[in-house]
């Protein structure tokens, strides 16, 4: 029996980047807001403590700050013909948990997608013909890059992104990405100083005719006060970003950018360690009444609200929709239905260069400090003579030298014993790796659904991920790997070792926590779960904000676009929805 709580104006499910940004924006409208977060409260001084944060075993290997499979697992299979089994330990991707969500443990690479990415289907069809897309299910976003520009800018200012613009209002700027779409102004902070590895990469990339530039980073190059008045510090290149909270207030996160202001607002309340089970709908299924959640004592509450914002991790947003019966579940056999449709990932590969005579100090690093070549990302190059669409960024961002995970050895080296040890001691300082972050385009057979067999602690079905890399994306990845190899060979090392991407997606080794889609935005209710404002077509007082809204993923880290979408949705709610609550914003 649920305890029924007094009604709120807004209930927010999940309290990471999107939940905190939306809460802060809507609190300024005077709304009475509660955010409900599954994990614990976390703050920098207590939980990302400088005295013991640099513990690779605890945080990177045992994954203290992450969601654990014991808490909520997912099942996976590569095709619908297989039986999905639970990922009993998260491996390929690592969802966050607790206040700040995945915004605590990210690396900080903060991109804008290209204008052509937002109108992908129209753009590619117009340039190469519909036949080129026949094995894919790509879509337009229903919003243009030009419309998103102001929202991107706000997120970059909030987070103090360090970088160099490549295109301001159509003027190509020296030192930035010459392929980027026009932006209204430069990043709030200049780029970071470059460690040796990325500097060497940039020289090699230029020598083969490409255009390297500093990767836009949420690792701050200088101290900064953001537009909310929150102060942050300069990055100290400690090499403990990804999988760690920043002890130095120099990696952007909800904690370092939003919470010091939001938490003090009297019309905002946060409930932690409280697990939302379901969005409750009216009898006709067209209105959300509020949410049911369970606290750590196992007691169930019903929180009524006028507006429900689904702001959990992308995969959990989709599961919440499926468990709540919002939108028709997608069926890959017919291609019909919307919830679970267009699940995408990231198509990554890598290359490692071994040297005899170099000292890289790989531990002098940060999650986003490096150099990128974008000559082959998205549609920045002519695909007329190749047999795929999409592309990727070639990124030399050595994120750390933490030695449980970072121990390169040349090919043919044993995994243990004297020979292994000798090779490890030599290669640690003298090896440079970089990667290709490739796009992931939707295909009919890749989707999210509820598992028929496996359940969570409460008996509710786990999310089932059905995914393999489409052939198009494998061809793209091989082409990009060849470009990365050209750069690697220009460095004149002793060995170049490629790690190419081939089928099938393996859920065990870490690849990327860039899971996208499943509750996508668009302009056709038959092909998208959300309209262009991230509002559910079926239940208009529900907005679903996150990478779950991406119709497909670009060759870039998603957080910049996720942050921009939070501002885009917040503006739509503030400026349009609140005038006519309960109505769809698109007819």
């Amino acid at each position, binding site marked *: 029996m649920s305890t029924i709580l007094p009604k709120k104006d807004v209930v927010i499910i999940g309290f990471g980047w999107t939940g905190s940004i939306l809460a802060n924006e809507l609190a300024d409208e005077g709304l009475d807001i509660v955010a409900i977060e599954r994990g614990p409260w976390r703050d920098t001084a207590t939980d990302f403590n400088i005295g013991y944060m640099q513990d690779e075993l605890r945080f990177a290997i045992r994954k203290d700050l992450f969601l654990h499979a014991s808490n909520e697992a997912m099942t996976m299979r590569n095709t619908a013909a297989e039986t999905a089994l639970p990922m009993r330990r998260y491996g390929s991707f690592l969802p966050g948990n607790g206040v700040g969500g995945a915004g605590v443990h990210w690396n900080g690479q903060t991109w804008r997608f290209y204008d052509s990415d937002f109108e992908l289907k129209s753009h590619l069809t117009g340039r190469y013909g519909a036949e080129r897309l026949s094995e894919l299910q790509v879509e337009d976003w229903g919003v243009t890059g030009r419309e998103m520009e102001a929202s991107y800018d706000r997120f970059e200012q909030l987070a103090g992104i360090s970088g160099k613009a490549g295109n301001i209002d159509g003027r190509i700027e020296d030192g930035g990405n010459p392929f980027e779409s026009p932006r209204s102004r430069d990043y709030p902070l200049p780029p970071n100083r470059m460690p040796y590895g990325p500097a060497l990469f940039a020289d090699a990339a230029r020598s083969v005719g490409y255009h390297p530039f500093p990767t836009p980073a949420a690792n701050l190059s200088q101290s900064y006060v953001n537009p909310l008045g929150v102060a942050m510090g300069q990055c100290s290149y400690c090499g403990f970003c990804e999988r760690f909270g920043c002890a130095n207030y120099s990696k952007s996160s909800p904690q370092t950018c939003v919470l010091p202001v939001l938490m003090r607002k009297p019309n905002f309340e946060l409930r932690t360690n409280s697990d939302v089970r379901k969005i409750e709908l009216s009898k006709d299924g067209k209105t959300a009444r509020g949410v049911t959640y369970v606290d750590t004592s196992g007691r169930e509450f019903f929180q009524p609200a006028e507006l429900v914002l689904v702001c959990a991790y992308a995969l959990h947003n989709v599961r919440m929709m499926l468990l709540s019966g919002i939108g028709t579940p997608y069926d890959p056999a017919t291609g019909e239905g919307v919830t679970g449709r267009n699940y995408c990932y990231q198509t990554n590969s890598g290359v490692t260069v071994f040297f005899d005579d170099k000292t890289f100090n790989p531990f002098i690093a940060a999650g986003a400090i490096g150099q990128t070549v974008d000559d082959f990302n998205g549609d920045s190059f002519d695909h007329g003579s190749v047999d795929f669409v999409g592309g990727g960024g070639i990124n030399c961002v050595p994120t750390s030298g933490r030695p449980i995970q970072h121990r390169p050895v040349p090919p043919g080296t044993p995994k243990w014993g004297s020979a292994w040890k000798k090779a490890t001691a030599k290669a640690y300082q003298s090896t440079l790796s970089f990667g290709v972050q490739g796009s992931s385009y939707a295909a009919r057979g890749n989707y999210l659904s509820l598992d028929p067999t496996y359940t969570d602690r409460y008996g509710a079905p786990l999310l089932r991920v059905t995914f393999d890399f489409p052939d198009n994306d494998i061809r793209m990845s091989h082409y990009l790997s060849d470009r990365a190899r050209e750069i690697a060979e220009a460095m004149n090392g002793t060995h170049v070792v490629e790690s190419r991407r081939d089928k099938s997606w393996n859920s*065990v080794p870490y690849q990327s926590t860039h899971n996208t889609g499943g509750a996508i935005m668009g302009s056709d209710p038959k092909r998208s779960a959300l309209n262009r404002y991230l509002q559910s077509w079926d239940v208009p007082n529900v907005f679903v904000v996150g990478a779950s809204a991406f119709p497909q993923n670009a060759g870039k880290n998603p957080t910049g676009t996720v942050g921009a979408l939070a501002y885009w949705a917040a503006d739509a709610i503030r400026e349009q929805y609140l005038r006519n609550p309960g109505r769809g914003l698109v007819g």
Partner: protein
Amino acid sequence: MNRRAFLTTTAVGLVALAAGSASARSISGRLPWTAFAGEPPTPVTPGGWHFFNPREVVLMEAIVDRLIPADDLSVGGRDAGCVVFLDRQLAGPFGGAARAYMQGPFQEGLKTQGYQGSLTPSGRYRAGLAAFDKAVNDKLGARFETLSADQQDAVLTDLESGKLTLAGKVEASQFFALVLENTMEGFFGDPVHGGNRDMASWKMIGFPGARYDYRDWVDQHDKPYPRGPVSILGNIVEQQAG
């Protein structure tokens, strides 16, 4: 709706669960920072065994000394504390698979679906070591620790490849991979967890450990970092540049 109303409705629950970050909380109007509320690690100290029995200790010490042999680069795995590390890990949440999804049904999976066995890591070590002990004895008529270093390496190579089969529920190459992975965690992790004694592995490769600020060396391209490692225990090894 306000915080007071919520507190009223949940007063009993909050009283019962007032302390600790694991309890549900309502927070409004403030940043809920509390002094000394963090969770620092408890340093592992050698002495006594929490998980391994005496026979397993003998086997494990012999195994880790072949995975990480003593030479002019560093001490061996045993003297680096790898078995102490493994013992405490297996006696704790990791050994009990506290963070893994352990609900059935358990079925044989595809390679892309990962480990699907019902045993916890501590269960895999217990069963795996017993089966390994027996398999070595059956094959060579001698205990693993009495073999020469070359013979031990040959046995471990066969375990790694699966050529040496183990009776029971533990598959040989998977068991070897687990032991190797955990041994390396102990050797390269912070000494606070019981392995990497005196930061032996960090000195070997030149990793400065838990230092937190390299702003003075970012621009020193291609020059070895001049300072030795530091652990989160506060231990520092100073070394001279050049």
